[in-house]
């Protein structure tokens, strides 16, 4: 009984601390915000309403605008796709080199793990902004930035999978004198490929969002166009609406597609 009471006390205290943190955190954030929460709350609908009503008035132009921004959309998708591919290849090597039993240089395992930790911790915007300064605006800074983060993030997920691989095929290959690359390619990859592809697809979804956001800080693609059209303000809301529509439908589309494929990939595996 005493134990139950003590547990209740702990639970209550945790809840209390949590509530205090939430309320005070909210107040601090509200204070430091330019506009207050309660003033802004009833204005939430204003901007979408303005955009929608203007877009509706000019609805005849929308197909033309969507066609106009389609190349930007392709660029955004390309950034995501290339960086996912490069990131997946990098993550593959990082994870294999950082997994016990598979690593080529077992002593360097901690180093490769730290490298992937750091790559994962760097927000894309940091690398993107620095590279924009050096390389100028455009898709390449965003691509490199997202690829680095993706490599780190995928390396962690991949190594969770590859830790559970069956080592027998690897040993078998080793007995025939296969090199490390051959052992990995023929012994490990077939075992882990479905899971890896599934994680890479999930990452692709995330990266589409990331590449749109990075465009907003100057790295090309749809986000960049969105910032420009927003800077025009009223009168050009139809352009903003066209970009919103493109972005929204793209994200939904790739979410659905990758969801379906991921389900199929992990289905026939059996737990």
């Amino acid at each position, binding site marked *: 009984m005493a134990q139950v009471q003590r547990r209740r006390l702990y639970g209550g205290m945790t809840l209390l601390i949590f509530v205090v943190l939430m309320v005070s955190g909210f107040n601090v954030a509200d204070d430091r915000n330019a*506009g207050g929460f309660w003033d802004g709350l009833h204005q939430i609908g204003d901007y979408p309403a303005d955009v929608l009503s203007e877009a509706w008035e000019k609805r005849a132009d929308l197909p033309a605008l969507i066609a106009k921004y389609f190349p930007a959309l392709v660029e955004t998708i390309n950034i995501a796709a290339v960086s996912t591919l490069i990131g997946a290849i990098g993550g593959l090597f990082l994870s294999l080199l950082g997994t016990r039993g598979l690593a080529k240089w077992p002593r360097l395992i901690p180093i490769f793990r730290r490298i992937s930790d750091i790559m994962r911790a*760097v*927000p894309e915007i940091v690398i993107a902004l620095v590279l924009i300064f050096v390389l100028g605006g455009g898709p390449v800074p965003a691509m490199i930035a997202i690829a680095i983060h993706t490599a780190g993030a995928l390396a962690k997920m991949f190594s969770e999978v590859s830790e559970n691989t069956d080592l027998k095929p690897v040993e078998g290959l080793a007995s025939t004198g296969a090199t490390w690359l051959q052992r990995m390619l023929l012994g490990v990859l077939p075992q882990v490929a479905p899971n890896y592809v599934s994680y890479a697809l999930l990452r692709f979804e995330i990266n589409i969002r990331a590449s749109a956001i990075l465009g907003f800080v100057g790295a090309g693609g749809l986000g960049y166009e969105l910032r420009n059209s927003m800077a025009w303000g009223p009168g050009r809301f139809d352009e903003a609406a066209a970009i919103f529509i493109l972005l929204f439908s793209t994200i939904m589309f790739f979410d659905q597609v990758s969801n379906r494929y991921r389900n199929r990939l992990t289905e026939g595996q059996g737990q």
Partner: protein
Amino acid sequence: MTTIDLDATKFEAEKLFQRKRLIGFGIPAVIAVYFVYIFFAFDLVGLAGRANMENAVTLASDSWSHKVHVTRDNRSGEISYSVEGERKGRYPEGQRPDWVTGDDAIIIDLGREHIVRYLPDNRTEIEIPGFSLIKVHAEGRSLTTNLPEDLPEWISASDRRVSITTPEGRITMTGARTEVFNYFPGWELFWFTLDSPYYGQGIGTILFGDQLDPNRSNVSGAISDWWNNAMWRHKDVAWAIGETILMAFLGTMGAAIIALPLGFLAAKRFSPFMLVRAAARRLFDFVRGVDALIWTVVLARAFGPGPLTGALAILVTDTGTFGKIFSEALENVDQKQIEGVASTGAKPLQRYRFGVIPQIVPVLLAQILYFLESNTRSATIIGAITGGGIGLMLTQAIQTQKDWEEVAYYIILIIAMVMFMDWFSGWLRGKLIGRKN
């Protein structure tokens, strides 16, 4: 087994081999073709031309070093000394760096026998080993020099502007002013600015030495001078990091609180009405699909820039994600526990509390804590758009294009912050639901 069976199996196996071979070579080939397409679509050839290597060099050298400017205003003849040429880093009246000597003629020793002399009447003499003595005279808006016709590439000269770059430092001269930049490794004034009495004092002196400022005790004075350091703005940086973490915390937790009841509505087992279920699911899909970027833009219009807007953008997007994850977790709940609780005569609410919640809490907590870490990164990016937190400070520092040591400082802090949140959420998860495995 008959021969026909064997043949059929053989045929099957061969087909399988062929398919595997096709995939094995086909996928890398498709990827290679795609990379070639990207090579041209992203104009990587043109990029080499557009890339500004000078920027890269400035960035690489400035991020770990600082420069001290010695500036002569050629109109008033006034000479000022400052770190990074900023007003905040200016040496107080009567003080100057110890590599500057002389009164009428100011002698600046850049090291390795590179010497610059500011002579009266706006004349300048520059001694560089292996090169003849350079004399420059500024009159009005133009410069007269004794420089020869063909110049080495580290000197650029016209009658308006002369600029000399050496490994020891840089000298630029125009009619209006003469400037010498002397480079040093390290982040100068990181602890105290020059106007603080604690500048240049060792930690031993501050802790145990004589009182440096008659009005304040050493420790509290030193801490307050460091905290209010005008160059590095430690106070603002700390607030900014706090804001970023706050955005992530408020957004993640708020989303979890809102998504939990909605998750019940979307789960087949707990929500008998198909219409409600479908509505909740479409709502999740919608807020997820709109994406944090658009939410940030829309919410910034209503709430103005600041951390609250960022927190709300994270909250709205993650409500969709959490709702989806929670409802999936709820559908996989074990019915037996609920029946067990129900058999004791528990009311529906009690059944949820004791039959369902204990089963899903570990799954939910693990997800929430994972998102807390990933949202710290998102909050950095959203902060750069909506104007709050360390993301904003980073973008501002990069846009001014000169304080690269501050950029490096912020980057290190951001990485440390994300790694800390990663560790912290892992630690909390371990405490709350036990380690994995």
